[in-house]
């Protein structure tokens, strides 16, 4: 039996690789998966590119930046499978949330209103000479960073000049919010709920408020591995697809929560995992909120890697860095997402039918054939 070394971060969106092992989907494909828990995305990237892992759970934008050599050595990766859409939240510190409530005279009713109110808070702070507010995300290249920028623009806030960004590892988010080191963050569960429970923060937006199916985590491999061992990859993809189906089924959420909560995986209470799976979270001290597609594991728009999504990620990475786009580089980015591998493994022959691969709920429309206009509109929205 072939053993594949797979890295993962202890997050709820590692559900598919974990279920692929625990439910026997990998074994059924004649595949042995050795799951290796990691502590940082930098470790994940380095161990994958230096052949200490064969495959890994990875931030979708990190797969693109690594392949293009942005921020590190250039090593082409292949993404044959998307692991999830959404599942993150934007949380404000208790102090900043109070300031938002004060300008509104009540709690914000939705993501748009909270961003607009934050704009007014920021303008007031500018007048009084207060320092810029600090937002934390989990990695420089993450869908978290992209989501926060979109949300800020929704309120008319310039993500490049009106706020500061920094990276804080998820386990340290709550402490940083409570100590006032950061004023807001975008992170996956259970960290937002922890902030709400302990009274140090309130959730103002779910990731799914910003976009319907922006890629969050993906399965990444070295490009050379995809070429050398296609059969092993196909088996892995079939196991992941079965696992995705199982993870999405609400009937299985109790079992999945129990599975993920074990010490060798996430090491948190099953109830905490179950809340995120159910999409019902306490968002502040008095209110809870439910969203059907808070975290989604299955669907062709999610699992089948659409190169248009890779182009979107590229445009977002470059505008985040405030660098001009380059069509040759965009094509290189698109080639990282490999629907051909997915199709060969699963026998899928349907082309993506969705007009809009990202499903942004506001802001400039995304057209993957016209990245320049999209990036230009983003930059303008930021001015």
């Amino acid at each position: 039996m072939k053993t594949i070394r797979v890295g993962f971060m202890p997050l709820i969106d590692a559900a598919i690789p974990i279920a692929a092992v625990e439910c026997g989907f990998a074994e059924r494909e004649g595949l042995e998966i050795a799951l290796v828990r990691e502590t940082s995305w930098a470790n994940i990237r380095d161990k994958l590119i230096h052949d200490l892992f064969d495959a890994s759970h990875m931030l979708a934008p990190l797969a693109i930046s690594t392949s293009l050599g942005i921020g590190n050595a250039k090593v082409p990766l292949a993404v044959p499978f998307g692991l999830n859409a959404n599942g993150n939240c934007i949380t404000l510190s208790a102090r900043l949330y109070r300031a938002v409530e004060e300008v509104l005279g009540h709690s914000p009713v939705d993501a748009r209103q909270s961003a607009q109110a934050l704009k007014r808070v920021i303008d007031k702070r500018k007048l009084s000479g207060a320092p810029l507010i600090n937002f934390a995300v989990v990695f420089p290249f993450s869908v978290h960073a992209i989501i926060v920028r979109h949300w800020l623009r929704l309120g008319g806030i310039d993500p490049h000049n009106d706020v500061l960004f920094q990276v804080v590892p998820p386990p340290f988010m709550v402490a940083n919010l409570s100590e006032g080191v950061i004023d807001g963050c975008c992170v996956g569960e259970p960290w937002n709920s922890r902030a709400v429970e302990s009274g140090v923060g309130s959730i103002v937006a779910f990731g799914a408020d910003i976009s319907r199916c922006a890629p969050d985590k993906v399965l990444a491999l070295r490009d050379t591995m995809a070429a050398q061992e296609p059969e092993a990859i196909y088996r892995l993809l079939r196991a992941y697809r079965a696992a995705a189906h199982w993870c999405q089924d609400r009937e299985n959420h109790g079992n999945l929560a129990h599975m993920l909560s074990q010490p060798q995986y996430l090491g948190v209470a099953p109830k905490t995992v179950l809340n995120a799976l159910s999409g019902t979270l306490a968002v502040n001290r008095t209110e809870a909120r439910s969203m059907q597609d808070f975290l989604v594991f299955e669907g062709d728009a999610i699992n089948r890697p659409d190169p248009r999504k890779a182009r979107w990620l590229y445009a977002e990475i470059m505008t985040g860095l405030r660098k001009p786009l380059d069509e040759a580089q965009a094509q290189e980015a698109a080639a990282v997402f490999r629907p051909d591998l997915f199709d060969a493994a699963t026998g899928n022959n349907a082309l993506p039918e969705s007009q809009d691969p990202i499903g942004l709920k506001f802001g400039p429309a995304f057209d993957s054939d016209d990245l320049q206009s999209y990036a230009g509109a983003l930059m303008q929205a930021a001015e």
Partner: protein
Amino acid sequence: MMDQASILIIDENHVRAAIIQDGLREAGHANVRWLNETSNLLKRIADIDPDVIIIDLESPNRDVLEQMFQVSRLVKRPIAMFVDQSDSAAIRDAMLAGVSAYVVDGLRKERVKHILDMCIQRFDVFSRLEEELHEAKTALADRKVIERAKGILMTAKALSEQDAYALMRKTAMDQKRRLIEIARAIVMAGEVLK
């Protein structure tokens, strides 16, 4: 000759950090500092402004350091990851030892290599120490269980210490199991029958 490159160690393990610091000083690196407080990490790094940063791979803070690759308002000098992109073997060695390094652009490669090699060596020394400690602890714990099992047998079957031990040995051999497993079973049974 003393090397004046300023080296910053980020490691929450006090013992390991001390071992690495000593190693670097012995090798002639006079300018070594250690950070164990990692809140507001980038600001602390910017204040120290080191030439080389050594960080253990168990630390989630590696992701915080990744920001230094981008133009950051917090770090004054551009930072690169250690060694040539082509030098995969060196990076693998470091990762297997559990360490990673970030260096300021322009520092001579041989100097950095010397520092990192020393760190890898010291990380290995620490892992070995930890392993030995773990083995010693396990051996001690096992001996305690065996002693207790012996005591239970002596009382229950009115045996001498020597006979109780011999009985356990024989049972282990007959059942092709380790002595400690038999001892654990006896202790467990002893608890139940109490």
